[in-house]
């Protein structure tokens, strides 16, 4: 039977093709004599590095893919065998384990080694330790872009922007030396131009969750929708992708479709997902008709829904602003303000905090956030713990009990309030 819809599933289909092409191209880069840079998602400077001729590897994306494909466990154990503690970030250990086993991804691609490690340090001190280890193991050059953590609630200061911008300009010379070719300012500008258009579409997609019922799950679906804007932003493929997803979402709105059969509870999610048990984790919410209408993890690579856009007329300066404004580079007053805004703007009923052991940058302060939202703001708040990479930390029965108890209580509260 033919589907009555033209656009449903196109986001998933196009993304699969984009990533397949991306990895194939990447795998063949050394054969073509092209250089490879490794970098991180938060505050990534993909457009700049691509304009220097680099292919890009994001170890965090590899880690989450290994998580979903259920091979993170063995990778993590391999890293622990060479001395990594059980208490450090699972993403790092996954990446080290992957390297030790020849860098072969679960989908078959063999990742090339780095020619340059660009630690675009934004919001995570572990990034530094991670690339220090890769520099040692691969013998590759490492550069750091130092991004100061934000103070106050007004956003980055002019001094901070200038500081990061100067480092980006200095980085160009390093890239030219390592890549053996000149930086192409026109290509950079054009990429930023495409970036801005992708950002507009991405915000439109995220904000579609203001509708009732929400056409998307702004966490469980958005963490997949976000992949191109965090890995291949600035490319035509990325722009085309968001045009297709925007149509898919628009069609859902017209048809009154959403991620669950009947939307009963609207939630805001804070924290990364449990990648190794993703489907199970989502089901625990779906069964209660819970739909995420806004999440912080979908902003982990950058925040645009507060109005920021890259600027082709100020490509370096706006890149610096973008890096400084990353979610985990914001202090707790800013994070709390953002979440509270989401609860109000998206008409959410509750806040769910998923605290992961691996990522202290995300998690330290979340327990205090729970105190604040429950006691100060009187928002029903659920706090659950597991991990984003290490399958050993997912206590399914305990997690399910807590989620069930929370939504039962929420339902009860609604019924009694309605009497």
């Amino acid at each position, binding site marked *: 039977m033919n589907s009555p819809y033209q656009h449903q599933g196109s986001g998933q289909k196009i993304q699969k093709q984009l990533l397949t092409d991306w990895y194939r191209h990447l795998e063949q880069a050394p054969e073509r004599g092209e250089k490879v840079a490794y970098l991180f998602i938060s505050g990534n400077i993909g457009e700049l590095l691509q304009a220097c001729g680099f292919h890009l590897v994001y170890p965090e994306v590899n880690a989450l893919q290994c998580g979903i494909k259920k091979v993170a466990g063995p990778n993590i154990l391999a890293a622990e065998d*060479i*001395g*990594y*503690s059980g*208490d*450090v*970030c699972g993403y*790092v250990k996954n990446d080290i384990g992957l390297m030790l086993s020849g860098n072969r991804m679960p989908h078959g691609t063999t990742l090339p080694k780095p020619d340059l490690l660009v630690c675009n*340090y934004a919001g*995570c*001190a*572990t990034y*530094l*330790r*991670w*690339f*220090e*280890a890769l*520099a*040692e193991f691969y013998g590759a050059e*490492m*550069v*750091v*872009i*130092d991004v*100061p*953590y934000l*103070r106050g609630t007004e956003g980055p200061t002019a*001094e901070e922007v*200038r*500081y990061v911008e*100067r*480092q980006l300009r*200095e980085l160009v010379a390093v890239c030219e030396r390592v890549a053996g070719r000149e930086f192409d300012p026109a290509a950079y500008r054009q990429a930023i131009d495409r970036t801005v258009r992708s950002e507009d579409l991405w915000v439109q997609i995220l904000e579609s969750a203001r509708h009732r019922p929400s056409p998307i799950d702004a966490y469980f679906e958005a963490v997949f929708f976000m992949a191109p804007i965090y890995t291949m932003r600035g490319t035509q493929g990325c722009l085309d992708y968001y045009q297709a997803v925007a149509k898919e979402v628009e069609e859902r709105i017209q048809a009154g479709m959403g991620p669950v059969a009947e939307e009963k509870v609207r939630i805001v999610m804070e924290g990364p997902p449990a990648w190794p048990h993703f489907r199970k984790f989502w089901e625990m919410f779906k069964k209660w008709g819970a739909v995420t209408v806004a999440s912080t993890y979908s902003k982990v690579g950058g925040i645009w829904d507060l109005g920021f856009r890259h600027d082709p007329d100020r490509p370096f300066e706006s890149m610096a602003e973008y890096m400084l404004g990353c979610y985990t580079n914001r*202090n*707790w*007053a800013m*994070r*709390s303000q953002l979440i509270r805004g989401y609860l109000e703007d998206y008409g959410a009923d509750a806040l769910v905090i998923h*605290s992961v*052991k691996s990522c*202290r*940058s995300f*998690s*330290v*302060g*979340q*327990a*205090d956030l729970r*105190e*604040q939202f429950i006691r100060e703001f009187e928002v029903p708040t659920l706090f659950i*713990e597991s991990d984003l990479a290490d399958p050993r930390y997912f206590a399914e029965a305990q997690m399910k009990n807590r989620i069930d108890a929370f939504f039962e209580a929420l339902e009860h509260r609604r019924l009694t309030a309605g009497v």
Partner: protein
Amino acid sequence: MNRLERLIDEARREVEDNTFAAVRAWKEEEPGRACVGFFPVYVPAELIWAAGALPVAVWGGGDRIEVEMADARVQSFICSISRSTLELGLLGHLDFLDGMLFGSLCDVARNLSGVWARNFPDTFVDYLHYPQNLRSEAARGYYREDLERLGAALGGITGRTPGAAELAAAIDLYEEQRALLRRLAAVRTEEPWRLGLEEQQVLVRAAGRRDPRRHNEVLREVLELLPEREVRHKDGVRVVLEGSFCEQPALELLRTLDQAHCFVVASDLARGLCWFKEPLRRSDDPWSDLVEAYFVHAEGSVVRHFSPSERTERLLARVRDSRADGVFFCTAKFCEPAFYDFVLHKRALDAAGIPYLAVEFEEKMSSFESIRTQAETFAESILFFADEEATA
């Protein structure tokens, strides 16, 4: 108890006092005195002093505190120091502080600054960013501006914004202190049986909460008395202790190492108070001197990314310079930065054929028997293999 022991005991009682009675008394002695706390690893103490306040190291509650209220605010997989420090605050033990400073050591320390700001809304809380791209020509300028900004902010609470003269005088005072602490460390390197590791460390930790003028006098007197101390030479192995730069092991653990004849002859204990490996280069611009302290004179530490291999190279240099037989990794449970460093250090030590032992500690540890056994076995194995090599 002789004079030397009395001086050490007095320091011990002060550093073990979670109510900071001696610091409170100091503050009340003269009107207008102020105290500014700092979480590890490092803040430029001289900047706080120049702004007219006493820098107070707030480095956890050790084994003398029950963490209850902080457990609701910081998860169980986070290091003890973050929870016990917060508990100290929630118990009101830190209500004498006029401000609290945090720095970019790790994500825990950084995020704790926000938790602090929310839980103590009436306290001045600031966060100092330490540049991690030391190759950038912009980094020195940025750090200097940040120091000047912090100086002005501290002046806002004390009424004394530091100028160049005040800052230069404060650097003089803390340079004197660091030189004295280096001499104390040298005693351990040369004759570890002359001064217990625990004794040395209470004198170091006291530097984190005493009027530097007074403590410098104490340190001078201790250094005068030490050569006269009646001691017996003890056989043992010489080790570099690594990994305790932030959360501090219990004093009992330090005593245990001496008892196990595992003599720590160099360490990163209380790193923030003894961070500079040499006297600072001085100029007529004290702000620039403070910048250079961080950029040039700081010992390898995870607080500061210099290059991927710098910290390991520096560890090997410390082993060599202190004529150590091995390395004793003494890492706080859940301390991510130390755990990451351990893997790289371990590779280099394996390659260099230097023996090492790794243990984890928590503030609340009460039994040190397991650590004693491990340290004794480690010491014996080093001595055994040294004998074997000698006879081979």
